[in-house]
């Protein structure tokens, strides 16, 4: 594994996302969203191979576009459209026209409390297949359904529970899982007429632990990870009635993001307030596994991220960025060619051109 490239970017970034590409091509562009600045911006960076030397050029800013608040989440609809969740309760659409970012539309005041806007915290696709509807969650505890062709939110899910939602992911066709500040996970069925969640359960029954992020396994979407504020990463299996949760301990403070590698799901990467970016991999790697094995497996214990494996501590964490970094790593993203970009509160960006994944 090569040494991370450190680049100072002159602003604090809250999110970073690679532009979606076809699986065989190499992703060369990513976007970052800043927060806490006088004028916050979404910036497009180019990170490409220099054909003459065969090495990577330093990421350079290609274009930027001002937004009206702190960026709290970014979601690519496709290569041209990017949705930006903002702290002023709005959701902005940014268009990428020949590598130039320009604002296309803004839903204002999607999330409000007592008529004053509250931050939008998370934004996700409506379902794993539907592309023109997205869901947003806010600190008002509501979930809004936004259709890309409608100027106003089409509906809201409001379960009379006002705890801030911190993260939201879609699960199967019309179900959505939301995590909130007080550490509960709520599963909603969007087709149901009732506004009450289909299932509510706490991440920890013994004490209050906030969940900051959720993500699912790329090919087993019932497998969920939840990054907690005490530095642990929870693993849940939504298929089971009594949802079992096991934890990986590696960070010491808030886990801001934890995600499986989309092509090599045996690898998990997580970043935290404590300034670390960890790459988790199993100590016993199953090299000759049948690729369909995981999908067809009915026994949960065969799975690499099974509860038994986690409980046994069969995983090792590798630090991707040096320990000298004391600033929170707010976000990261992995490209399809194993290139990891992480952004920190130290106004710096770490780029790892090729991490070791199996």
């Amino acid at each position, binding site marked *: 594994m090569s040494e991370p490239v450190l680049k*100072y*970017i*002159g*602003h*604090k970034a*809250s999110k970073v996302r690679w532009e979606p590409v076809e699986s065989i091509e190499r992703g060369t562009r990513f976007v970052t969203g800043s*927060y*806490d*600045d*006088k004028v916050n911006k979404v910036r497009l960076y180019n990170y490409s191979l220099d054909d003459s030397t065969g090495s990577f050029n330093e990421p350079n800013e290609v274009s930027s576009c001002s937004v009206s608040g*702190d960026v*709290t989440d970014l979601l690519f609809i496709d290569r041209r459209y990017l949705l930006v969740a903002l*702290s002023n309760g709005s959701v902005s659409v940014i268009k990428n026209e020949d590598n130039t970012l320009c604002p296309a539309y803004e839903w204002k005041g999607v999330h409000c*409390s*007592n008529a*004053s806007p*509250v*931050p939008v*915290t998370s934004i996700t696709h409506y379902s794993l297949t539907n592309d023109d509807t997205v869901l947003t969650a806010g*600190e*008002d*505890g509501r979930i809004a359904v936004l259709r890309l062709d409608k100027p106003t939110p089409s509906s809201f899910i409001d379960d*009379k*529970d*006002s*705890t*801030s939602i*911190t993260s939201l992911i879609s699960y199967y066709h019309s179900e959505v899982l939301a995590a*909130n*500040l*007080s*550490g*509960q996970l*709520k599963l909603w069925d969007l087709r149901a007429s009732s506004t009450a969640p289909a299932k*509510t359960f*706490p991440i*920890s*029954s*013994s*004490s*209050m632990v*906030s969940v*900051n992020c959720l993500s699912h396994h790329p090919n087993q979407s019932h497998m969920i990870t939840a990054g907690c*504020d005490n530095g642990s990463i929870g693993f849940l299996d939504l298929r089971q009635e009594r949802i079992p949760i096991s934890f990986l301990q590696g960070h010491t*403070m*808030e886990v*801001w993001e934890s995600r499986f590698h989309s092509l090599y799901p045996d690898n998990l990467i997580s970043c935290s*307030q404590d300034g670390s970016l960890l790459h988790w991999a199993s100590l016993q790697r199953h090299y000759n596994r049948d690729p369909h094995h995981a999908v067809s497996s009915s026994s949960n214990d065969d799975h690499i991220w099974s509860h038994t494996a986690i409980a046994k501590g069969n995983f090792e964490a590798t630090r991707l960025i040096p320990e*000298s970094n*004391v*600033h*929170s790593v707010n976000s990261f993203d992995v490209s399809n060619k194993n290139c990891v970009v992480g952004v920190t*509160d*130290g*106004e*710096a960006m770490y780029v790892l051109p090729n991490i070791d994944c199996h």
Partner: protein
Amino acid sequence: MADVEYDENDEERSSASRVGAGSGYNGDEEEEEATSSLTMSEVHTCGRVLLRTNPRNSIAIFTAPYDDHDDDHSNSDKETATSTDLYEVQWSGIVLTTDSVRKLVSQSHAFFMELQEYAGKGMDPDVCVKYSRLYRVALYECTQGLNYECENVDLEENELQDIKGQLEMYSLLNVLWHLCEILFIETLPVGCLIQQLLEWVRWHDRGDTDDVMNDVMSGVRPDTHQDYWSIVYRLTLQGRIDDVRKLLTYSSYCKENKKVFDSIDELLRKVPMIKSVIGHSRTELMGLWFVWNQECKRRRDRQDFVGCPQLNLLCGLLCGDKSCFSRPEVIDCCKMWYDMLVGRLLYTSPLILSTDYDLHVIAKDCLKLYCDHKGTAPYYFDTFILSALENKVIDVIKMVSSKLSNWWFVSHMTNLLHHRGSLVTSQLEYGSQLSEFLLIEYATALFVHPSLWEVAISYLSYCPTQGRHFMCSLVERVPLTTSTKALKLIRLCQRYEMTEEAQSICRVLARRCYGDGRMGSALTWCIKGQDATFAAFLAEKYFDFYESIGEFGDLSILDYLGDAVLLSNRLAFLSKYRDFHKQYSFGNYEAAGQLLVSLLTSGITLKKYWLTLLTDSIPLLQIPDKCVFSSADTYELLHILQEIDNTSSYSDQKDMITSQDEFSINKISLLRLALVRNLQSSLVLRERKH
């Protein structure tokens, strides 16, 4: 830039002026540097000016029209003076409008942190040199970035001027930093100072010697180029002897007079450049140089070069002849006066030490010659360089602090010098060490920017005397825009053990959520901040809400409180009460009944809720063929009912019974009846069991 002067006669304003000056940002210079959107004329057209200071290095100014009796002040602008705008006048310790400067701030912060880490383990002078160089790299990258930003075609004219001003300042600071590094941070062996100074001059060669040299050499006959001799002198002064020799081969005079050329070439070839001093004593080196110098002088006195006055002058320079250095063509060839200085040191006293008095004398002389020749007064930056050469490090720090609106240089430099041990300062009047004082200034200047609170507080954490006080008061002023940011701030407070501040952040958020009617979030923040008082208050509000509506709002948090119930008795009560409802709805009447009795008897329930809880027992009392409460329990409940009845306020004043009281009285009698019936059946039941 607004130089706000206050009218001495106007009491309001002069007192305001004192407010401005007394805010801890030492005095007059800063007021001059206040950047403002308010121009002087605007201030004058407004009537009274009210000022208020705040910790963000700014003052808020509210302008109000003159009162009627202030006739002497009234003027034709009176109508326009009825502005109700509030102005913020801010003086900046560092201008952070450009990305490049932001990068400098974050990069140097990283270096600063590492350096403090080293300093904790005992300081090695080499580490200081290393970090000084790293800071210089950051400065250099900043100037490169600013250079790049200048090329942006979309910039407005004033923005461009601003960036150019920044570029100029940081380039000069880089020159000064490098000089300070050579003079105060590095430990140089004898004879190495001059090499370092030559390196310094070459590195910061703002005249781009190479460009001129290439331009001269590119011609068919370089020696006819107008800058030919000028560049020869310049290269000589910079000690770039090989380039001088190369250039001289083009001279037509030298070509015609081979002997003369050989003579000067030999002198040049033999210039004793002291690169390595290992194995030589100062006397030896001195002797080496003296021999060469004598040879130069001998050849010049022999009038070897008299045929070509330029060549003669060149030899004069090599001899270290003072009159030659003051010749206009020599001064003209230098872009800066210190180019001249280093050249002169090279040929007159190559073994000079940074502490030598001569250094100061020669420097002063060069500056004077240069300024007289150019007909200008020394630029303020020249005085920084001069002070550094005079070995007056404190003066350099003082002057840079007072003349530039930039704390970056002084804070990092003093910190480095402090660790290097080359900064001897007495306790300052304002209660802290110089290095700490400057760090505080820099940190508060950074804090003005909305992004840099974390960096600012990190700098303050290295200020042992006053840092903590500043940290506490600044942390309270970071706007809490999102929960994520609040969590980050709480972590920051935890890192620096600012428990009270962390709690106050949670309380602010809890209150805000409560104000917005978001009870769930409010309670979550309470629990995060371990704020028992506010949690108790919220628990009461929850209960009141239940009493008025008949159902709980924001249920899920109550269901999963975990060990958070221990925070407050009220919260524990609420959680148990919620349990009671759950048990009841699941049909576990016995368990529900037991919970109710324990809630009432354990003393965690507020007296004002007793009646509500007892009322909840009615459905349990009326379940047919079932006796939920034992006789002992019923006695307890009756006892509680009696206590309610005794202490009720309406029992004293029978005439003033309200409908609410009447409702309660009815309830009490209903309850008494139900309880007595229950007692009866429970006794019967007990009898049967026996």
